[in-house]
């Protein structure tokens, strides 16, 4: 049986979109594991129904494996789960109203569950995170310098890094890399040539835009919930 990962993020309380994705995945062939890479909550709408569904899946739902994202970090900060710090970055950038909207959108009974979520998962040689291995709020995009992308991969010691924060969908391979290093210390000089094996950073999208990843073939497929998938992607065929 083909093993696939469905990678979702940025639902921000949208239960309808989550149900649409669940419906899609039921029709997707293969053994599917569903990962929700953060931003399950947001300030725009009440998030309680979605959170309840994620914690208590329906009997025919795929079990979601969730990590926390930037919006979860903001509510944890504001609710005192990070010591004395508060969601000041959110307050400065979006204003007090948005801070209030966020705290009003999530019932306090869900905060312990959110606080228990992990920063990320490492599955096989893949890192699954919301932002980057440096910061939950870091945007990794096609325009991020390759040296930075390589560093974020190295920090997790993985060959594939799935990221959601930018909301973009992309699959960028670092196909080859080389650098010469020469160290002089009290013991003398030593030279070393370091090469990089093939690695990749994959932006999974947000909301209705999610990603399917074929673990066996390393192929990604960018999907919009409720629409037929594009034919051009090799490795999956029609869904």
């Amino acid at each position: 049986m083909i093993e696939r990962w469905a990678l979702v993020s940025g639902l921000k309380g949208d239960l309808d979109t989550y149900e649409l994705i669940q419906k899609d995945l039921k029709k997707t062939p293969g053994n599917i594991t569903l990962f929700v890479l953060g931003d399950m909550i947001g300030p725009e709408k009440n998030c309680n129904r979605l959170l309840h569904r994620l914690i208590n899946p329906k009997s025919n739902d795929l079990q979601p494996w969730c990590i926390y994202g930037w919006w979860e970090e903001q509510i944890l900060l504001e609710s005192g789960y990070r010591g004395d710090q508060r969601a000041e970055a959110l307050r400065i950038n979006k204003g007090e109203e948005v801070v209030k909207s966020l705290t009003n959108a999530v019932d306090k009974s869900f905060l312990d569950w959110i606080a228990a979520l992990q920063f990320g998962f490492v599955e096989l040689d893949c890192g699954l995170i919301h932002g980057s291995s440096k910061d939950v709020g870091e945007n990794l995009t096609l325009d991020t310098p390759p040296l930075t992308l390589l560093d974020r991969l190295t920090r997790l010691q993985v060959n594939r890094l799935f990221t959601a924060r930018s909301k973009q969908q992309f699959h960028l391979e670092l196909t080859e890399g080389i650098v010469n290093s020469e160290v002089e210390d009290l013991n003398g000089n030593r030279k070393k040539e370091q090469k990089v094996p093939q690695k990749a950073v994959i932006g999974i999208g947000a909301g209705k835009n999610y990603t399917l990843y074929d673990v066996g073939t390393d192929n990604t497929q960018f999907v919009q919930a409720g629409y037929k998938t594009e034919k051009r992607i090799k490795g999956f065929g029609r869904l």
Partner: protein
Amino acid sequence: MNQAVISCLHANLPAVEAVLKDIELQGITNITCLGDLVGYGPQPNEVIELIRDKEIPTCQGCWDEDVVDGLDACDCSYPSQLAEKRGHFAHQWTTDKLTTENKDYLANLPYSIRKDKCLFVHGSPNSQHEYLLPDMDAFAALERVENARAEILFCGHTHQPYIRELADGSIAVKIKNSVPKDTQEKEIQLPMRRIVNAGSVGEPRHGGTKATYVVHNDVTNEVKIREVEYDIELTCKAIIDAGLPPIFAWRLKNGFEFAEQAEDASHVCER
């Protein structure tokens, strides 16, 4: 023009005086200090006051930060629970001994100093607690310098002096599943960058007993590691007299400080 870079003085006054004398004998007046003025050693106030009197630009080290803000590193910083216990004792001893004025001085030290193409930090541009070891992943090392927008990164913290040049680098990338459909490929050339670790004046961990620092010529870009002998017996006696753990004196005298390095020194404490 030559500039001297010193780091990790660790309240060892005889070592600091000997190194400053060595710098003076070379006619160098441009000195930068990379922090850790205190910790482990018996003369924290004296060392701070010497650096202040000479108006040497200084970054805040991890010990300087911890003495002001409280311990924020986890036990990963130490190779054993015993070493951690000794470190915490030295932390408390130093906190008790420091004058309010000197604590204020440490609290107001900058995290980094930039001079043209050179950036000076204690650990790394990311953290005062991050070790840039001489043989760490070359791409990660290059990223630290490049993302700090420097050509030469001067650091300390490891207590091991070294000069590392990272050159002739490139990374090839391929964008898959792109819109338009064509696969895009390109190769990015990486710039040549250097990391210079100044070692340690007051607590060397290079396997010997001599204090170390570096001299950089900003015209030729040449960097030299300097080793300086100092009166170790004087420091050892002061450690014992101060009531600090005698092992601190034993390590200094025998050049065994390297044994105090954490097992996984590349680990970055997130606390």
